[in-house]
């Protein structure tokens, strides 16, 4: 008989059992009749000799070996009944579990999306990220010139294809015309085979063809799915129609699938509306404009591709006479590593933090169940006396904890679903792939595993404890008045101590991360983001016609500044082509007398600005002067540099009045030096920068920077009216506070710090609940003892102090252990800290004080109750 048949064929087995026993009874009765008994007597005698029919059947079922299933059904029913009676206990337990498990599912979903799942492309492991200058520096360092891309694509043996996109996303910022007010849209320029190489399938229509990516080819555009849905109401008839972006009309050839989110992979935290083909011929003289992605041939590893690049690039340089350009120190990494590699450590820390939370949850529930088991010891004693085996009791208790953890997991899943949905719509968090975070099959599997592990973990200790209890003791013990069994008390104290220690580790870790975050917020950025906003003014650069006079541009920009400056509440106005913390472009800059050693990085970030920009942005001019409108196209070319540039090119000299080369066609004169500005993020050190007047350089776009005491929202309509009166085609764009740019770069750190902080808070609450539970339980058990003490003359204060001392000793032992563990953990996360020592005394002291204070509060409540015990009442009851 198979196990399966015993389980499934239950009905048939029951019938056979019935038939077999009936046969016996019939035969016996017949024999008895034959022996001369009356029919009634024969039946009675048979029944007597046979015993209880149902009892026999039950025994037979048990000997069959499928009893455990029936037991489980029984246990579950019993559990549901008991838990239904103890609503408060159940609600608290399920809530705690739901928070613990829910937090774990959320973090798992994030980790799974960013770290574990392959990128949402076909054969994503073949995709490689190809970057110059070992991936260091600005986009101009890491991106490739068109001729280098063509040469590498033609000459390499490792890649099926090498393609790319234009990483200067500002070039894709334009406006959609003819749909009401000009609407700002963002897009990206990609090589015509970029999408095919990634393996993207269009949701509608087709991808680009090759002739759409050559000069003079038909202008084509692909819409992203969200843009198609919101702007064109998912209308399939848009295919083949023409839309106007900026000045150019182009045909919609397709709609990208929902699963393809360019920003999520290549530019976290940005939203894309459209994709158009980049025309390599047009970009040939634009410098470093291509970010490269390759698809490796099957079987080729990243290391092999790297080895080839190491020899190929220097060779290309000499054979193709492509010198006079950056020596590409090409580094090739898996695309996945490029996208999520930097986050690995943070995510693992986050994962550990929620793991700790789950441990605390388990410990807490163990404690709750132990307390409950203590009050149920009579029930269990009775059941043992009635013949229940030890295993049966353990399985009963395990069923209870599994039912609880199952309910917690279901509630946690709902919680996690809500949180992940919310997270996926937080477009401003600059983490890759965040938009595709969701609770998927893997998360469900993880949930089930967690629920079982948690249930067993917190159910086993009380189970073993209860079943090991002495039968006589549990039946005899009245449960009140006498001090409880010291063993059980010790176990509960141990649990509380470990809970405090775990919470301590979490708090210290979170404290360090939060402190790092605060340090980042207080970094001297070199500019003052508060009270400053920027708005993108209608302006189309003409890269292919550099000769176009700056004079015209100067006049128009000056007029715009004058009008905006005249608005009420505006204090300073300037125009720049790049804002700090955006993707900057870089040029070369050398002191005229400095020949430049090979290998020296001559790059500087470039800002093309108007007079007044420095003041509007709050950048401090250390020496020299700001630009003036007198710095005209025909007058002497002038630049302003930052200290980092001054240190590099004119070490130990005053750079004012010195000549530089590299910027523009001839020599330029340094007229001012400014403080260093953090241009890539608040955390990265400043790089050399150069500022060029708009009259002498070509700005890529025009951001009007406005310093005002008025909030952006109040200021925005007036600014927009002014800009529109100057340029009727002005798109209705947002007036962005500069602070939001800073926040964008700090958002990953904020995300992690806030999450870990939340988990630490949760851990603190759980730990204090644990302490409260244990102490308050002890007080209840000792009511009579306390009554006697008071009757013998103990004062309220003494009683209270005694309970508080109990609490404090538990908390202090836990804190001591937790502090030691925290030192280890702090060292492990030191690479995630910013300007904060792993053993930061302030954080340690603060967190320890916080923990002890919370423990004291948790202990004070039962202590107060203890001191209010009326000795007469306490002695009389029982």
């Amino acid at each position, binding site marked *: *008989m198979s196990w399966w048949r015993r389980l499934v064929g239950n009905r048939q087995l029951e019938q*056979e059992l019935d*038939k*077999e*026993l009936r*046969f*016996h009874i*019939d*035969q*016996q009765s017949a024999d008895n009749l034959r022996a001369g008994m009356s029919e009634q007597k024969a039946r009675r005698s048979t029944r007597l*000799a*046979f*015993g*209880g*029919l149902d*009892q*026999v059947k039950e*025994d*037979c079922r*048990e*000997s*069959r*070996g499928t009893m455990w299933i029936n037991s489980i059904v029984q246990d579950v029913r019993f559990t549901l009944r008991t838990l239904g009676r103890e609503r408060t206990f159940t609600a608290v337990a399920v809530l705690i579990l739901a928070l613990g498990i829910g937090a774990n599912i959320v973090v798992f979903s994030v980790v799974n999306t960013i770290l574990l799942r392959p990128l949402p492309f076909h054969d994503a492991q073949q995709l490689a990220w190809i970057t110059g200058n070992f991936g260091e520096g600005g986009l101009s360092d890491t991106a490739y010139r068109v001729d280098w891309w063509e040469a590498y694509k033609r000459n390499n043996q490792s890649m099926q294809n090498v393609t790319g996109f234009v990483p200067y996303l500002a070039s894709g910022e334009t406006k959609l015309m003819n749909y009401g007010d000009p609407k700002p849209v963002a897009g990206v320029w990609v090589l015509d085979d970029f999408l095919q190489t990634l393996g993207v399938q269009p949701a509608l229509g087709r991808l680009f063809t090759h002739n759409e990516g050559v000069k003079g080819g038909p202008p084509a555009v692909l819409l992203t799915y969200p843009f198609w849905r919101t702007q064109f109401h998912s209308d399939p008839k848009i295919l083949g129609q023409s839309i106007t972006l900026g000045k150019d009309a182009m045909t919609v050839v397709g709609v990208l699938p929902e699963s393809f989110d360019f920003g999520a992979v290549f530019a976290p935290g940005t939203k894309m509306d459209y994709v158009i083909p980049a025309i390599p011929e047009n970009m040939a003289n634009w410098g470093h404009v291509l970010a490269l992605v390759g698809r490796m041939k099957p079987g080729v590893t990243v290391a092999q591709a790297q080895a080839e690049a190491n020899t190929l690039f220097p060779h290309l340089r000499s054979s193709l006479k492509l010198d006079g350009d950056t020596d590409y120190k090409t580094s090739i990494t898996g695309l996945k590593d490029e996208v999520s590699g930097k986050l690995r450590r943070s995510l693992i820390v986050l994962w550990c933090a929620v793991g700790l939370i789950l441990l605390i949850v388990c410990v807490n529930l163990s404690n709750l169940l132990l307390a409950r088991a203590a009050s149920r010891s009579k029930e269990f004693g009775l059941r043992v006396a009635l013949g229940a085996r030890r295993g049966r009791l353990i399985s009963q208790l395990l069923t209870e904890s599994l039912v609880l953890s199952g309910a917690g997991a279901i509630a946690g899943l709902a919680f996690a679903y809500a949180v992940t949905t919310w997270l996926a719509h937080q477009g401003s968090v600059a983490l890759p792939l965040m938009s595709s975070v969701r609770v998927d099959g893997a998360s469900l599997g993880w949930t089930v595993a967690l629920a079982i592990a948690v249930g067993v973990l917190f159910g086993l200790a009380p189970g073993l404890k209860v079943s090991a209890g002495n039968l006589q003791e549990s039946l005899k013990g009245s449960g009140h008045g006498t001090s409880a069994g010291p063993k059980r008390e010790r176990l509960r104290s141990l649990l509380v101590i470990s809970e405090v220690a775990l919470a301590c580790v979490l708090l210290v870790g979170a404290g360090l991360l939060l402190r790092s975050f605060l340090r980042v917020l207080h970094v001297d950025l070199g500019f003052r983001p508060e009270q400053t906003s920027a708005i993108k003014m209608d302006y189309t650069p003409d890269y292919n016609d550099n000769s176009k006079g700056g004079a015209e541009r100067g006049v128009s920009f000056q007029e715009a500044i004058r009008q905006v400056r005249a608005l009420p509440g505006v204090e300073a106005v300037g125009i720049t082509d790049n804002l700090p913390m955006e993707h900057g472009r870089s040029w070369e800059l050398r002191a005229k007398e400095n020949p430049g050693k090979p290998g020296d990085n001559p790059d500087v970030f470039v800002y093309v600005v108007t007079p007044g920009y420095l003041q509007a942005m709050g950048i401090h001019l250390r020496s020299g002067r700001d630009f003036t409108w007198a710095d005209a196209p025909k007058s002497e070319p002038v630049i302003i540099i930052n200290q980092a540039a001054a240190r590099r090119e004119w070490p130990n000299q005053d750079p004012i009045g010195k000549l530089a080369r590299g910027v523009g066609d001839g020599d330029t004169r340094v007229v001012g030096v400014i403080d260093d500005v953090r241009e890539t993020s608040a955390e990265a050190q400043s790089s050399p920068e150069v500022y060029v007047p708009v009259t002498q350089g070509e700005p890529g776009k025009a951001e009007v920077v406005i310093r005002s005491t008025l909030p952006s929202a109040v200021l925005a309509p007036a600014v927009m009216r002014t800009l529109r009166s100057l340029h009727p085609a002005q798109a209705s764009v947002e007036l962005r506070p500069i602070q939001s740019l800073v926040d964008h770069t700090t958002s990953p750190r904020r995300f992690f710090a806030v999450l870990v902080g939340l988990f630490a808070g949760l851990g603190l609450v759980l730990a204090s609940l644990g302490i409260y539970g244990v102490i308050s339980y002890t007080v209840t058990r000792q009511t009579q003892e306390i009554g006697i003490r008071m009757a013998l003359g103990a004062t309220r204060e003494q009683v209270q102090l005694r309970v508080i001392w109990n609490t404090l000793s538990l908390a202090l032992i836990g804190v001591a252990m937790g502090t030691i563990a925290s030192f280890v953990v702090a060292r492990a996360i030191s690479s995630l800290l910013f300007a904060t020592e792993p053993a930061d005394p302030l954080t340690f002291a603060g967190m320890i004080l916080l923990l002890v204070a919370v423990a004291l509060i948790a202990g004070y409540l039962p202590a107060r109750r203890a001191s209010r015990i009326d000795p007469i009442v306490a002695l009389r009851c029982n």
Partner: protein
Amino acid sequence: MEATSKFDLPQGTLDLLILRVVALGPIHGYAIAQRIQQISRNALQVQQGSLYPALHRLQYKKFLAAKWAETETGRDAKFYELTARGRAQLKSETESWARLTEIVGLILQDPQGELS
């Protein structure tokens, strides 16, 4: 249970008796009960119902095999027979039973242990 001069069956011996009886050939539960009564000359007190859990247990342990067949009176009954494993079990159980009774007998006959 009614007071009687009959023996209660010692714990664990029922399985041995069943194996012994079934060893004689395919047999159904009622007949097993009758046979045990007969051979023991009604000296053993076996609650007949307790026979069946034991039978099922032995079947579950694969010491017995069972099949449904007609009795001589034409009724369907469940017949048990010994498996190879059951036969081996019967042999070893019989031996250990013999040794046990021998040892117990020796101790009981020891003159020094006699009650004074």
